[in-house]
């Protein structure tokens, strides 16, 4: 669905004759070309997973984290331009601590998503700023239970049961729709997310990848944290086994 903007795509403050802002669409392309990021809302919490494409064999595993804690009760996974993502995470953390200072309670996830969306949208309003080239999946656990939000470079944010961005998002979304999320605990969800990410990874086109996963659920005491090592290994093993089963068919 790509079309050339010719002339109407030079500035984020210009509409095209058919009502599109091309700069924002181009920003979305940056997200579409990055490694897949998946988020699901299970019965008792949220699971986030990232297909972290490794640019060089020299990189240390566990570096260049794509999932960041934003406060004790929430975290966000970033897809797209990593440096842009850092900026969004910094701003989100600042919003969360500020809310806590003023109101004395952890920021509700809905409010946090609105602030992230607002900030991302801000950068699409002025010619001297460029839109963020990253999409964010934000998951948190507050008084209203676990919630999952996705924010796009246009500044649009919706609440989801399951969301995916990046290269393999179409295939990932199909897989997520097959899952019965309402009946799943996060422990089971972690295995499913690993299977999805291993499944959508394109061996031919892309290099090696590292699976990064986090959760915030009852089992983690409603704190956002990296999935414990033993569960992560279990998930990776299950994902690899599922892949082999598919190849064997």
């Amino acid at each position, binding site marked *: 669905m790509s079309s050339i903007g010719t002339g109407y795509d030079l500035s984020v403050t210009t509409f095209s004759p058919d009502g599109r802002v091309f700069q924002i669409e181009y920003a979305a392309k940056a997200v579409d070309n990055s490694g897949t990021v998946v988020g699901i809302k299970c019965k008792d919490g949220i699971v986030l997973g990232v297909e972290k494409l490794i640019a060089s064999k020299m990189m240390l595993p566990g570096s260049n984290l794509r999932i*960041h*804690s934003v406060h004790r009760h929430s975290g966000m996974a970033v897809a797209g331009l990593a440096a842009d993502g850092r900026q969004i995470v910094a701003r989100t953390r600042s919003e969360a601590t500020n809310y806590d*200072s003023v109101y004395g309670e952890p920021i509700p996830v809905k409010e946090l998503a609105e602030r992230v969306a607002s900030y991302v949208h801000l950068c699409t309003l002025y010619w001297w700023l460029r839109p963020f080239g990253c999409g964010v999946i934000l998951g948190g656990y507050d008084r209203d239970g676990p919630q999952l939000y996705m924010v796009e470079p246009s500044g649009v944010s919706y609440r989801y049961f399951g969301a995916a961005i990046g290269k393999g998002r179409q295939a990932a979304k199909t897989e997520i729709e097959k899952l019965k999320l309402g009946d799943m605990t996060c422990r089971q969800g972690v295995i499913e997310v690993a299977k999805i990410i291993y499944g959508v990874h394109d061996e031919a086109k892309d290099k090696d990848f590292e699976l990064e996963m986090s959760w915030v659920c009852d089992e983690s005491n409603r704190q956002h944290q990296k999935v414990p090592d033993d569960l992560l290994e279990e998930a990776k093993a299950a994902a690899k086994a599922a892949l082999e089963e598919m190849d064997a068919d």
Partner: protein
Amino acid sequence: MASNSDLVSDTQRTLYPYVTGTSVVALKYKDGILMAADMGGSYGSTLRYKSIDRLKPIGKHSLLGASGEISDFQEILHYLDELILYDNMWDDGNSLGPKEVHNYLTQVMYNRRNKFNPLWNALVLGGVKNGQKYLGMVNMIGINFEDNHVATGLGNHLTRPILRDEWHENLTFEEGVKLLEKCMRVLLYRDRSAVNKIQISKITEEGATLFPPYSLKTYWEFTAFKNPTVGAEGSW
């Protein structure tokens, strides 16, 4: 020449404390640090609040005890909360230890003092990280040091001598508590802002434990107290 202190009007600067906590006493023992404080908050000479928590765990490795202005203590807890939160969000397996937290507090206290707007507290910071015990103190003018036993306020004058005589390396938990209770009892008898509801807390490699508050047994049958003016009629 205008300085920061001229820019801040008197109504915005701490000039005197309002609700204050009295002494905190702490010592190193075999497994970590033991700290004790009573639960009183005085409003001048009135013992107005009797359930103030003056000992708080900070992060995984430290305990903070405060004497002085309670509202400034709450402000300090707020700063430390944010410090620990940001430390946790790095998610790198590292965590701030007692030495680091003490240093941070020293910076905060000294810088506020330089702006003539002090946080009116004397803080005791103790903790254990990777087997290393640490016990330090910092006060409102930024004086800070570490030692095997520390105390704030009247505790400095009444309990440090006891600790200098009776503290030794590798006190057991029971010995440490007994020593702390002896110190707190002296303070209860002699400090007018002390209240008989004390809290003891310990911090070891495993973490912090705050014990429930309790009262010290006191003895008022000393003959000297019975007829206090017998040697000097007319005095009180």
